[in-house]
């Protein structure tokens, strides 16, 4: 109780310095909040918990596979369920309004991607409607799309038979991502609709995704599929969903490294600044510490005082920075489609852990200085 009064008094003693320290900490946690949100969302490669396999064209996953492969893969021994998807490369009105969009098989897709939740009546409606489209909850919220709306999406890849690039859809249902990994920032529509209307690539699909009866059989399944198509016009490469996602993210290459570098630099900077400032604060308070010791304050209570101060700075600055990051993302989300970037609880949790670490680490040197100090020295030094 007394300790906390002292901590507050100490912090308020030099308001400018305290404010500056808080700003230094806040700026690096703001940075952390923004970059970590980006990391968790856009470059999210976390597919842990999935034991799915993905079959893609060996030349590159952007090359198509014949539709016949879907049935054949589904019947491979050890395969529990299979489905297929074709990247549509959609955008809404402007090319910059990029929409994650796939032509899929409604009958099987939501069985294989069981983390996606769709009402049975919605699913029924989507597959019964030729131009029916299922919209992810996050995307529906962001764009204000309602059931029954007719929307036009453009494809950056396909042309329809009239040479146009726009496809019309009717919104027939919504789905959500129970894993909360942002998979609901997407739209799905029926493969047949695309296949009947496009001018090129008819009867080809992008990827086949399958679930094995048990993950132990993965090696056998991979081998069976890939050898089957060896020396065929479309050879395949079958990998786990984790490998697939990781290699996809690797395409962005050095971007991730750069993000890590910036956050690292900024943390180190705020660590150094708060650390050295606290150390110099303690030195300037030598006499005060001597007085406290004379009054009978124990070593541990002095350390607690210092720790209270550094933790308070870290907490105030850190919380302010993270909060600001959240506000900025929310505001930015109102004006532009951020592609599902928002601050998840993981960002807050990791951030708060770093806050505590910062508070603890920066108290170390000042504490050592304070503990080494003898009363005689403290009161004598000027």
């Amino acid at each position, binding site marked *: 109780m007394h300790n906390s009064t002292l901590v507050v008094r100490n912090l308020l003693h030099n308001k*400018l*310095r305290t404010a*500056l*320290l808080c*700003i*230094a*900490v*806040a*700026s*690096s946690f*703001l*940075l952390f909040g923004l970059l970590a949100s980006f990391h968790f969302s856009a470059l999210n490669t976390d597919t842990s918990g999935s034991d799915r396999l993905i079959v893609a064209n*060996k*030349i*590159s*996953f*952007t*090359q*198509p596979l014949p539709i016949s492969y879907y049935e054949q893969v589904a019947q491979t021994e050890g395969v529990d369920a299979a489905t297929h998807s074709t990247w549509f*490369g959609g955008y809404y009105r402007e*090319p910059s309004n990029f929409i994650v969009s796939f032509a899929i098989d409604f009958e099987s897709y939501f069985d294989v991607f069981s983390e996606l939740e769709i009402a049975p009546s919605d699913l029924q409606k989507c597959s019964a409607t030729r131009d029916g489209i299922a919209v992810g909850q996050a995307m529906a919220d962001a764009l204000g799309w309602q059931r029954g709306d007719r929307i036009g999406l453009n494809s*950056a*890849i396909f*042309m329809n038979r009239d*040479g146009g*690039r726009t496809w019309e859809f009717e919104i027939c249902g919504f789905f959500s991502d129970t894993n909360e990994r942002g998979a609901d920032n997407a739209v799905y529509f029926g493969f047949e609709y695309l296949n009947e209307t496009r*001018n*090129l*690539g008819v009867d*080809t699909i992008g990827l086949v995704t399958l679930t094995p009866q048990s993950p132990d059989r993965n090696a056998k399944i991979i081998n069976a599929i890939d050898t089957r198509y060896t*020396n*065929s*016009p*479309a*050879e395949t490469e079958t990998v786990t969903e984790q490998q697939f996602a*990781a*290699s996809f993210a*690797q*395409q*962005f*290459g*050095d*971007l991730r490294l*750069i993000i890590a*570098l*910036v956050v690292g*630099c*900024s943390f*180190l*900077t*705020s660590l*150094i*600044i708060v*650390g*050295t*400032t606290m*150390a*110099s604060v303690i030195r*300037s308070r030598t006499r005060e510490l001597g007085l406290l010791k004379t009054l009978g304050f124990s070593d541990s209570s002095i350390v607690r005082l210092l720790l209270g101060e550094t933790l308070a700075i870290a907490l105030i600055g850190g919380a302010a920075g993270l909060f600001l990051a959240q506000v900025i993302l929310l505001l930015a989300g109102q004006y532009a489609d951020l592609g599902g970037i928002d601050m998840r609880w993981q960002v807050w949790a990791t951030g708060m852990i770093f806050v505590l670490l910062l508070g603890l680490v920066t108290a170390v040197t000042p504490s050592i200085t304070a503990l080494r100090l003898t009363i005689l020295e403290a009161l004598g030094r000027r």
Partner: protein
Amino acid sequence: MTSQFRQFLAVSRIILASVPKRLWVALSMVVAIAMVVFVLLGALALDKGMQATLDRAGADDVVVILSEGASSEASSGLTKEQYSLLAEAPGIATSGNELLISYEFVVAVDGIKRSTGTEVNLPLRGIDPAGAALRTNFNIVEGRNFEPGSNEIVVGKHVIENFDGFALGEKTRLGASEWEVVGVFETGGSVYDTEMWADRLILQNLFNRGDTVQSVRAKIDNIGSIEGLKNFIEEDPRLNATVSTETEFFASQSEAVSDLITMIGRPLAILMSFGALAGAVNAAFNSVSQRSVEIATLRTIGFGRSAVFFGTLAEIVVLGVVGGAVGVLFSLLIFNGLSASTLGSNFTQIVFELRLTWREALTGVTWALALALLGGVYPAWQAARKPIREILA
């Protein structure tokens, strides 16, 4: 003025000589500022390198024709009935009897990025015989060009240097057929150096493209001819296409990338600057409080307020410039010439070299100087203003 200036010099010397007594605080400020400059220059180097790679690829006497509304090759598509009309277009240069025109498209094929060992998309471009000659500075550095009508590939220099799977002489299977890498080309470090080229007709067949292409490139007989070409395309309703010079085409692509990098890079540097600013103010206050007796003594023996003000500021500015210089030095060592790769507009890799010139270095040092001045002014003013008796009491 001379006397005041001499006073300032004397005070600055005294103050700078005492910096080692405040080593840790001073050092933390230097490091903080160096970090800001490092991040800032990193962003600038990425931007500069990417721009240079894209700009180098463009020529003013080569036109790029895409379908109407397409901003990149990946989102463009032209049918044979459309692109064959272009053979009749005015203003296209010839060499002998051949029109210098190339119908092209890009597909992605897997290569292995050597530094990480992971699979990435590399662009394989189908071009016509005239295609290679349309690239500025094109020359074969090893082997030979591909034979039209054969399963042969030539690869760009950056592909050979950064990715596995397409070495000279290597045979690679694409679909049902085997392909041989017969040559290595370079185009002076432009974006084309991260491409592989093969015969368009063979590739269309292999990749089931029918007879569609994504873009048309052509040499025009003089720079003014583009107007005639524009009119020709506009007047024919079947040709739903846009034409631009290659320079314009790459400039619009580099604008997008460069916007992205500066839009991210500058705010990051500004954010980090707050931390560095706090470090600078702290270092200044620390110096002032440590030297309070000294300052009072100087004032008592007749040094003016301005000498104290500028002397204190000088310390922070010197530290700031040192921080800036350290940041620039590290950036030069680490970023300059560093080869990086990322996804380009065709959803395939672009290799580019990070690049720093004295202009960026100057920006870095200016930034450091501004931070130091901003951080030092208030503490210096406080130091100069403090009544002598209050300190010595």
